[in-house]
């Protein structure tokens, strides 16, 4: 069993609070491994980057396996520019 969360559409400062809460709950209220799908993200700003930067060590700290799916082109480009593409291949990145 895996708990899957899909991030969709615009993921900017306007959604940051909600997305963060959703992920926080997923980390704290479920015991299954967490799978984060990022292919549906259409708009990104720094806030989503920060959330991902927070999520990876946080999952590790809580001992929760975390895998992240293929990012959408927009997100992939942003992470590449910021030199952060590696965070998607966090621990147990054995997807597909």
């Amino acid at each position, binding site marked *: 069993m895996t708990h899957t969360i899909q991030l969709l559409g615009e993921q*900017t*400062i*306007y959604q*940051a*609070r909600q*997305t*963060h809460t959703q992920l*926080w709950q997923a980390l704290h209220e479920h015991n299954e491994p967490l799978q984060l799908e990022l292919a549906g993200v259409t708009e*990104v*700003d*720094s*806030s989503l*980057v*920060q*959330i991902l*930067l*927070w999520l990876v*060590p*946080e999952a590790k*700290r809580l001992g929760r396996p975390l895998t992240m799916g293929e990012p959408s082109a927009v997100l992939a480009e*942003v992470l590449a*520019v*910021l*030199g*952060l593409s590696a965070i998607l291949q966090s621990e147990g990145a054995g997807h597909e």
Partner: protein
Amino acid sequence: MSEYDSALPAFLDEAHELLAAMESILMDVQGQQPDSEQLNAMFRAMHTIKGSSGLFGLDAIVRFTHEAENVLDALRAGELSFDDELNTLLLRCHDHVKAMLQELDHPDVLASMAAPPLIDELKAYFRQQTSGDISPLAASATEAPAAAEQSWLISLRFGREVLADGMDPLSFVRYLAESGELGGLQTISTQLPGGDAFDPEQCYLRFELVYHSAMPLAKLNDVFEFVRESSQIHIFPLATAGRYLATVTQGQDEAEQQAVAAAWQQLGVVIEAEAEVVTEAAAVEAVAPLASNLQFAQAAKQASGAVARKTEHKETKTTETRFIKVEASKLDNLINLIGELVIAGAAANLIARRSGQSAQIESTATIATLIEQIRAGTLSMRMVQIGEIFSRFPRVVRDVSKELGKSIELHISGAETELDKSMVEKLGDPLMHIVRNAIDHGIESVETRLAAGKSATGNVWLNAYHESGSIVIEVADDGGGLRKDKIVAKAVANGLISADAMLSDNEIYKLIFEPGFSTAEQISNISGRGVGMDVVKRGLEALRGTIDIDSAVGEGTNFRIRLPLTLAIIDGFLVQIGKSTFVIPLEVVVECIEVPDDLKSDGTHSHLNLRGEVLPVLNLSEFLELGEPPGKRQNVVVVNYGESKAGLLVDNLLGEFQTVIKPLGQLFSHLRAISGSTILGSGEVALILDVPALIEFAKQKEVADFAGQTEQGRAQLH
């Protein structure tokens, strides 16, 4: 997203103001070199619009204004010289930005406007100007070729509130990537807290990046203008950046210091061990003597220029804050409240007078005076200078005369004349129509003018002045004048008048405002945009305005528009008919006379002898079917309508009264003789008579009555 929506109108307002300023400068200079203040103002217009557009994610506008800004910057730096061609190019840039602002609701359209052919023209112009032989002066140490690329190390440590303030650190990186080349970027997130301390709406990011670009340092600095206060932004020439590591990490924790050092090494910056803390300003200063490189000297020069500009910017800011933008509805509410205050004050006055206590009477009188001052003050807040609309005409005249191959000079006077803001908005279109008409039909072609012994250049005058409580706007030209015979012929052909109609000059001229007068052969690209001059007439009537025309064949035409200063208040003359009180606009009242005993009356109409003239008299009580018996002593108010006079029969004259106009609402919208209402000091509502409409109505009714009689007569004959 509601913040976005609420901020957008302010952005549009500001953008339009800036564009208007830019346009008026471009119109003023007419191909002459603008002074530095004008250059700065134009640069600021493009720059500010670019910055704000970025905040709203309007990338297309950012891209375009960026190009325009580059040209203006080069111009400011003396790298380009100003000429007629550039003047036209910049006007077109202004137009394009304006057009883009119109398309905010259509992102697709907007995106397609980001790089119009105009950009290539700008760039071509830029190249052609700058690649020409560089004068010895330009080649000296003070000037560097504009296209020289240099490398910078940029350290961006964003403030916590940056995201919440609506700025995205990523957007800066994107912008830099578009306007130059990113030579590497390291993201540092050591400040990003783990666990529950993380707040997703705070910003914890820091970017260290290498940037190659031809952008001058001053401009590079400007990129970060909107985050400079909240964030720590450092820009160093890449070659010497290594010595400033301590500067950029000053006061930060060890993890961050190490991360920055590691990032710099990744970016290829050679860190100098004996680095000392230098302030940024000193850093730039230090660059100049150290570097034998021309570019650095230029950078330093521009950096100091940036400081100078900043102070300048501050100065203009203080002038700007002398104005406060207020929502019109707030002002209207205030005016309504003051209207009520006037009424309440009048009631208090009455009570005081009844009480007979002199101290009380005195204090209510003082209050009444103050209320009057407050009212006048509030109403004056709505007043703006008519120059606001006049200022768009130089451009129109220039463009249209070019298009028509005519040479026309526009003379503006009285631009400081004030009128109500809401009128200014509605006046723009009718006025534009008249001016275009004057250029198109009024001013003759150069050949015709020369043949008639006139100067080749035609003149159009725009003038405004106050006259007895109204504003008068004149649009005059020294063109061919109106041909009465032609107008009459056309009006007859179009069925507007019968062939044997006897009309005064003014009546003939006014035919051009009739719907259906403008015919296909007359429609040109300029004035005949599918609507005739009747639009002008309707527009002005909606503003309670009138228009008169003077014209002399071969000499020119003068359109004289007369408007009330405001739609919100009216100087009225109060009359009583039976129990009802009516307001007659003071501007139409000529005089008041007592009714002579021998007034002959046949129904609602009659006439009397006014110093030898026949004055038709309308019995208001009967005409308005008030059903009240006439008072013992009646009066006649003599009013003007157009060129004629008429008398209105009323019972009592109650005197002059300045008052706030209240609309009557849709239920009464068909009432032609009544234009609105007002609230009297007693709290009662009084109706305002629309005198020209009233008399027109009375005429029609009379014609109808007679027609009815004839019909009856005919019926009896058969």
